[in-house]
């Protein structure tokens, strides 16, 4: 569900500062997001082997194929320290996959070898991040990018969002960074018992303050910012192939920009009639306002930063808002 949580918004100077700070990334457009995140930990079926299983199977495979293998040969073959290999063999013994005291696979060990990777499905708890929205959207946001917060009452998440994401085509998953090896969601039964504890889904409420930049290449990358200082991190915490990948990044309608412009003008006590008469045009990261000369003169007298190309405004009412630099042009 979408919550009307207070949103922290940066000011014009902050936006302007970001623009110059991110200049090395060749930005084309800018957004600011105060996103509420569901970081949901669920049990899913994943394909393939775990790292440990990979090791066991590899060692078993070698032992089965080269029946006269010695520990030294295994060490040499795997390039592992002898201590590590001893540890692995000991573990294999404990799990009954090799005969104790010898390097011969047991029948269970041989059976393990016969299974194919692709067919193997193993349950694993995974964590998925979703932006809080009427239909939550998966985001491959790094865990470090968001901070836990106390959610308001009414904080809800529908597990169907995960199932929807799992059911999406591979192309979508690749575009959005959704893991391809996730098979299906293993929901808890309606009457869970202690036996079902691995299946219990947990949703952790987090919030992320992000600066999203569309680069010349079309790729959108997100940087973390901190509302205390509005400083931004250099690391990309989330990236999208293009703006189309996220609905909220799609171009704002003119009405939205006009509302933002009008709000900006109202805060500066500009005459509403002249403000309404302006023609707006969105060009890359700029919002070109074709304004009457009198309005421009008024701003000039007020030494407005808008005439120096340093005034920025945010448009929209959602948690992801497009930013634009005001450019006043005589109409």
């Amino acid at each position: 569900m979408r919550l009307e949580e207070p949103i922290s918004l940066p000011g014009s100077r902050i936006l302007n500062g970001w623009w110059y700070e991110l200049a090395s990334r060749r930005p084309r457009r800018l957004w600011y997001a105060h996103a509420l995140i569901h970081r949901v930990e669920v049990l899913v079926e994943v394909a393939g082997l775990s790292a440990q299983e990979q090791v066991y199977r590899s060692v078993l495979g070698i032992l089965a194929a080269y029946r006269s293998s010695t520990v030294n040969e295994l060490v040499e073959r795997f390039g592992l320290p002898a201590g590590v290999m001893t540890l692995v063999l000991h573990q294999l013994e404990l799990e009954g996959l090799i005969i104790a005291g010898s390097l011969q696979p047991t029948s269970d060990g041989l059976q393990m070898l016969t299974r194919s990777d692709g067919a193997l499905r193993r349950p694993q708890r995974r964590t998925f991040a979703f932006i809080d929205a009427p239909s939550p959207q998966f985001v491959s946001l790094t865990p470090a990018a968001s901070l836990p917060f106390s959610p308001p009452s009414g904080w809800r998440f529908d597990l169907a969002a995960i199932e929807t994401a799992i059911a999406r085509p591979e192309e979508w998953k690749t575009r959005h960074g959704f893991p391809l090896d996730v098979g299906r969601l293993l929901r808890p039964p309606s009457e869970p018992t202690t036996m079902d504890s691995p299946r219990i889904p947990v949703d952790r409420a987090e919030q992320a303050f992000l600066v999203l930049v569309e680069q010349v290449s079309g790729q959108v990358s997100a940087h973390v910012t901190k509302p205390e200082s509005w400083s931004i991190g250099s690391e990309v915490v989330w990236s999208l192939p293009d703006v189309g990948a996220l609905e909220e990044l799609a171009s704002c309608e003119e009405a939205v920009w006009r509302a933002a412009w009008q709000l900006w003008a109202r805060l500066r006590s500009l005459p509403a009639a002249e403000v309404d008469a302006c023609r707006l045009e969105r060009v890359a990261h700029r919002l070109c306002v074709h304004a009457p000369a009198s309005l421009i003169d008024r701003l000039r007298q007020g030494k407005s930063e808008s005439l120096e190309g340093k005034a920025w405004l945010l448009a929209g009412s959602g948690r992801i808002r497009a930013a634009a630099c005001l450019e006043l042009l005589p109409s």
Partner: protein
Amino acid sequence: MTNRERLTPEGFQAPCRVADLTAPIGSLWESWYSHSSTAQRLQMFALVRRQGLLYAHQLPPLNTARSTVVTRLIQGEDATPACFDSLPFTPHDTDLDTCQRLAVARILASPDLSLLQGTAGTGKSRVITEVLRQTRARGWRTLVISSPNGLNQCLQRLDPQQVVCLGGSGPPALLLANQMEVLRLQAIATSQRELDAVRQRIAKLPARDDLIRHADEILLKVARLRTALADTSKQMDSLNTTLASEFASLPATLKLRNTHQTVVSEMAQRAEDIRKRLAAIEAERRARAVLLPTLQAQIDARQKGQWWSLAWWIALIGGDPVAKVQTVTHQQDQADKDLASSREQLQSIADQQAKCPAVLDAQLDSLRQSEVESRKNALVARDAQIRSELADAEKQWSELAFGEDIQAISASGVEQLSRKHSAMEADLSSKRDACDRLLLDLQRGDFLGELILKSALVVGASLDEVPAEAGFDLVVIDEAHRLTDRELSLIATRGKRCALIADADFTLSPGIIPGPNALSHSGPLEKEVPARPTSGTRPHQEKAATRTPAPETEPGFRRLWSRFYVDPRGWPTRWQLSEGRLIARLRPPRPEQAGWLHREPVYDRPDVELRIIAPPEEDPFLSEVAFPEQTSLAEAREFIYREFQTLAVEAGGANAGWRQNGSAIVLDFMPNLSGQERAGCVNTSEVNDGFRAGSVSDEDANDQENPILTLEPGIRERLAPGGSAGWVTACLEFDSSSGWDTEKARHWAATRLGVRACGRATNLVRSYRFTEGLASTLDALLYQDVKSTCVQGLRFVPIPKDTGRAIEGGLLKSDSVVSTSHSPRPRLPRGAGLELDLSDRQHLPEPPRLPSDVLSLLPSEGIVNLSEVEAIIDYLTHILSDPNVTDRMDRKGGVGVVVLTPSSAQATLLRAMIAKTPLSANHAGRMEIATPEGFRHRESLIAIISMNRSHASRAVPFAVEPEHLAEMLTRGAEEVVIFADPGALGRRAAWFGSLEFQSEKDGLREQNLLRRLCACWPEVLPADEPLPRPTRSRETGEKADWGERGASPLQTRSEGSSV
């Protein structure tokens, strides 16, 4: 964006970021579930039934585990750490000093968190190494987090077999992260080779039918050859017998016999001919014998002239008979000879004929022998040929028959071979699959790394490579002062206990926080008392000592340090002998308070004088108590404690700690210092080593020479030699028999001394890196916030050179300083404008100063200063041509001279320019060029610092973080040489606040450091005078206002001085 991440002139600074720590460490749910009670679990299941899932905020809080205490401590929450006693241990590194051993003991003993701080070169890495050795010996799994250089320093002394190191580069002995990748690649290569070999064998493996057909052929051939071989052998054996039967009929034999027969026949013929000739000769001889009387008669007749006679007439008609006789005689003689010759020949032939059978036999024997040899050779050759063919066949077999012994293959063995073929096929397929799978696993997974991590006792990791695995017994976080609370907390969750190691904070604050000497500032009460050695004492430590809470904004380590570290040397009490009196200075007055001194004698002890400070509108306080000279220290201390309930403790050590000594609970102010060390330290207590004064160890506790005071029943104060008055407090003892227990004693100490959770923090204050002079200079410059009176080991080389010559020891070596009479100085110092901005290449000076080949090597952004580079190269050439210097470098080992610069672009330029000189070839091992971050944890004999910035018209920052400047200054063990533009340096020192990418705080810290640096060379650099604070902050975007004077004091000074 933190300070470290701010955008610098060189673009985005690589952030010192901790790797993703949250995701793989474990499930939130599983973690909660494993620690939750049954009731809590049931409660959560009920929620799941209703909601379908759980929300994290609904999970009830759990009983905090030990690691949670660590996390809460780090996060500054109110967690009460448990008390613990340090454990005895046998150090592997016997050269560790007492303080370092104390640090190791505390880290090992702490159940949750321990802290270690030290200035440059105090042996922090050595302590970590010892900790790792100790933990390894205990079987603990330890995770060390540090920078790559730090890891090298800590881990290089360990057995590489038990160390895994992630991230960075290092000595080849270590198994580093990149080597783990190498390992993986090696394993891939091995497996690939194996796979290729198997595939090759599979390719060579013939089809089954072909194999059988071929095997049949080989088997037949082998059988034939074997038969032939047997025949040959048989022939060899029966050679003589065979030849005996065959010899007579041999052509050679027959030929020989025929030849012999011919010879015999010819001999017989010849004998017959000779015989015939003999008969003829004899016949002729007889005829001539008859003729001779006739001729004799004629000769007689002639001689007698018997003409009548017929004989005469015959002689007359027939010719001369004498001649005839002579002829006949001659003929007779010849005939005799012929007869003899022929008879000899005949005899010879007869002899030959007689020998003929023997000759024939000999020739036959010879022939026989020859035939035997010939036949034998033929058989041997045949045998060899057969054997060769057999060997070939057997080889073919062995290739074909999978090692099956051909001898064992019976005629029906082809079937057996077929089975063998099938088995071999299966075996090779199995091997191929195994190799394939291993290769695939190796190529796609990093399980080797994971595996190694799980098994290694010591895992080293850089901040970017923090392993996801939790459950380490100990996590050692080096350079902890660089991490945020969150990063510290997250890393700490990897282990059961955590040790934070950090560099001592450089005292770079611009006078906002009073320096340590503020406490020991001498007022007008008494004569100047030499300042106590306060190396390592930091402003926040002072605050801790006076129980002032640390500001909330302080980063994690500093806050923890101020909470847990108690510096006994920071306590204000000082004992001294002055003007023939024993003075106890209990609370030093501030300078402005010193004028409000009142002296009052004690009513019942008029010889004891109380010195009270009573400033107007403030509460009066007792500052000093003066005793008569003959008063013993014990008596004076007891008097103060009795009368004022004040502990006049003057402790010598930098660390305080609790221990149990028999029945006594001991609060030790100089823990674990042996008597010998104490004896050696007392005399040198004025050196910058806060741990010089002695401690009372167990065996010394009964040392009757040291005074023991009884403060109150059960509490004894034990003294040790040291301090101005001769004695310092070694420890306080709380006697259990008097009802004191640990808790009560700690509470008492917390109330009276502010000693709360000591025992977790250890301060290393004795630097082993620097020479004495340099140590003193750096200590004053960086740690004590005082003006160094004598600059030693620190040199300044102005760039450009015409602004002055190299300064050494604070004295100007040349009088050719720029004169203000000819070129009046501007109001503010101005830089020479030597820096070049690489991001603005279009505006690089013309003609280009940078060689084009060098320019191509430089990054696209950054500031470089070619003049400094050239000057540094000259200087390097000069010092490296001095055999004394190079000898010293070689004796020391490692890097002899390091050139440090805060700008990586300048470092690149230095490398490129030095590479063009013979220096790089001749002194490659002795010289290194690095940025402060790249040379962290390392040292060299000489450090050369290229400050780089030289802007003509404005103040510019010199480093991203002021700590980088301080780090550069502390890398040289014997000498530090600074190359800088004095104008730019002075202007920066005069500029309040941040510049460009700096934060406000860092800006002030940098300014403060540079001001102190400038004060070292007042003849060249602007003087260190008190600066007015700007009335408005730059944070507001407004320009700094220089107060009423309208200009900085530097301006004023420059106008009035001739610098």
